[in-house]
């Protein structure tokens, strides 16, 4: 199999309401514009009720399974620290990682029964060294004046892993998936995220 025929696996994780689904939809539009076969799978259902959200995203010449093999993740894009750590075992030893610094406490932590894990970026760096990138998505979105744009900030940061993919594909995808009044904000969010890495 030629190198470019290999399927690439991206795993997105976060918490319901953070916009991880929109982020994966943007990636979908981007990689079909780049000429790849794309499959992505997510479990809907109760995510709006504060549960975790994961998306398996795969692109390549021809993709069969919509879900990634355990341990076969090339790129992890995580919207929340605990939800990043939950999937650390899924990442290949040479996998690349973007972690958002937001913490959202699950009930067992809020109730004082469990500890929120400390030093998540350091844990990742122990295993993945310079392939770990930490982004303050919420802080950047706040500077842009809209916390909702955090997901697109993270997509911007994540886009640095794909230098061969034209930036215009990302911009087109944002324009296609978001209402016109949100275009300027989200394009700025994308650019700001891209610079953050």
């Amino acid at each position: 199999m030629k190198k470019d025929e290999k399927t690439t696996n991206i795993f997105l994780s976060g918490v319901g309401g953070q916009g991880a689904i929109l982020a994966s939809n943007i990636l979908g539009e981007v990689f079909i514009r780049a000429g790849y076969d794309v499959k992505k799978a997510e479990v809907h259902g109760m995510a709006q009720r504060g549960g975790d959200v994961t998306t398996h995203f795969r692109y390549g010449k021809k993709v069969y399974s919509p879900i990634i093999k355990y341990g076969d993740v090339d790129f992890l894009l995580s919207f929340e620290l605990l939800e990043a750590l939950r999937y650390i075992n899924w990442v290949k030893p040479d996998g690349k990682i973007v972690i958002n610094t937001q913490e959202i406490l699950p009930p067992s932590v809020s109730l004082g029964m469990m500890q929120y894990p400390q030093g998540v970026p350091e844990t990742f760096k122990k295993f993945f060294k310079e392939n770990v990138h930490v982004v303050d998505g919420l802080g950047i979105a706040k500077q842009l004046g809209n916390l909702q744009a955090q997901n697109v900030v993270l997509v911007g940061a994540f886009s640095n892993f794909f230098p061969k993919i034209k930036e215009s594909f990302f911009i087109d995808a944002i324009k296609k998936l978001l209402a016109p009044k949100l275009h300027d904000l989200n394009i700025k969010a994308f650019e700001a995220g891209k610079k953050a890495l």
Partner: protein
Amino acid sequence: MKEIMQGNAAIARGAWEAGVRVAAAYPGTPSSEILKDVADNYPEIYAEWSPNEMIAVQVASGAAVAGARAMASMKHVGMNVAADAVMTLAYTGIKGGFMIVVADDPNVHSSQNEQDSRNWARFGKVPMLEPGDAQECLDFTKAAYDISEKFDTPVFLRTVTRIAHADSLVQTGKRVESKMPLGLDPKEAPKYVMVPAHVRPRRKAVEERMKKLEAFADKTKLNKMEINSKTYGIIASGSAYMYAKEVFPEYSFLKLGMVWPLPKKMIDTFFKTVKKVYIIEELDPFFETEIRAMGYKVFHGKDIIPNMYELSPEIVEAAVKGKAYKAPKLRVKPEDLPRRPPNLCAGCSHRPLFYALKKAGAFVFGDIGCYTLAVAPPISALHTTICMGAGGGMAHGASKAMGKDFLGKVVAVLGDSTFLHSGVLPLMNAAYNKGNTTTIVLDNRITGMTGHQEHAGTGFTVRGEVANQVDYKEIGKAVGIKEANIRYVDPYNIKETMEVVKEEMNKDEASLILCKDSPCMLLRRANPLKKFKNPLYAVNMDKCRGCKMCLEINCPAISWKEGAGQTADGQKRKGTAYINPDQCVGCEVCVQVCKFDAIEPAKK
């Protein structure tokens, strides 16, 4: 350029391209997006949320009998509700094409059980197609209508979560109107009136149809043979095919797109061509049982492939290779991390209602909806969940069994959408059979859990048109609940709710309690925050004793902050409660729970 589309959206698209005129459904994960997508994108199709799956099938089959192409869609348990209609429609056949989409949920991501709906096809003698990606969702939907009209039969389209909720590339086409003329012919009564004298010839017609469909199965491109290896081959369908193809691309495959009836000649050819044949199926050994009964020697099937939960590429790989999957080295033990179960939203009206039921000491016969989350600690105030509408009937039975000594102990709770789906008849039963159950309808003005679908009680259709709105009180009266026993409560007033619930539970007559003015927190059009006096509350650190009472309501906005200290009047404490201002909506439930008046209005 191809489009990226969710499986459910591709089914909607396929229905539109096939010329479908009528689509009906009741929401259920993972099928809900099909009807919503039809309503949002394809104005040529009449679309409706029906009160339940049975009615969706009745509506769609009526349209089909009138000559139109029609679709009913539902989740796997919905098919249990619709089965009575479907099992006889298999006899009558249809005129316009009629497809029933049934979406299974292996691994119960969001369901009360795990069913393999392929069994309905064999049981009901109805052909079934199973797509493996979005393109097939579209193509097979169109094929289903051709098969339906050609063989005069309903056709099932079965998906699973990983097909329904997976996105992949789709080549779309144009809509082609059906050539079938619309109309009803009274002379066709022998075909559609299923009295015994008519049933017997139709029964025979079903068997003849199955023979023809078997022959068709061997010819259709829905089934395909991919011969690569002469040694190893795999028979699979849908998601299982995708996983197997991913890990063993060099094997031969018999991919079954039509999963019932089976292509006997193709299976024979496959076994003659390939030495060692695996049958890889998610859930039941459906093909395997049939193929073994045909006399073939299956190399491996359910002896190595699990018959429950979801498959995955690594499960298939490990099973076929006969050795444990080579997992990466564990970096962090996931079981050491705090889980993140779903929770009722901040401000949700179910939270105070269930807190009141807990304080009232009620045994709660529950139902299917967001409120099922009340089973989770620390609320822990829901004690059964079986199926849509089950709570009312079970509460009645339990009360009858236990007699009057147990009066005041039992309550049935269900949501507005669930009540209209199948909760009205248990209420009527309680009134008729001199029951004393108390039924509480948590009316939050929407079908919540599945993502906000309209129903007969919301006042809107699926397309947002203003519609008739059910009057729950009038329903109660009409089915025989005495007017004095029909009460309204404001669930946000815990004390008052508890008193009303206790009063009604203690009556030796059936009662109906309706939650008023308590819309879902996510239902923007109902302006759910309007009723709250203050937008935000905060813990007064001078007063908080760290008693943790406010944590008992499991509000996502409230957390525990460890740290020894004391109140202004010198009471020692080990920590305090903290209200996250980004999440608090001002519902005042915690204010009522706090014994020390330590939670006070704050400024946003």
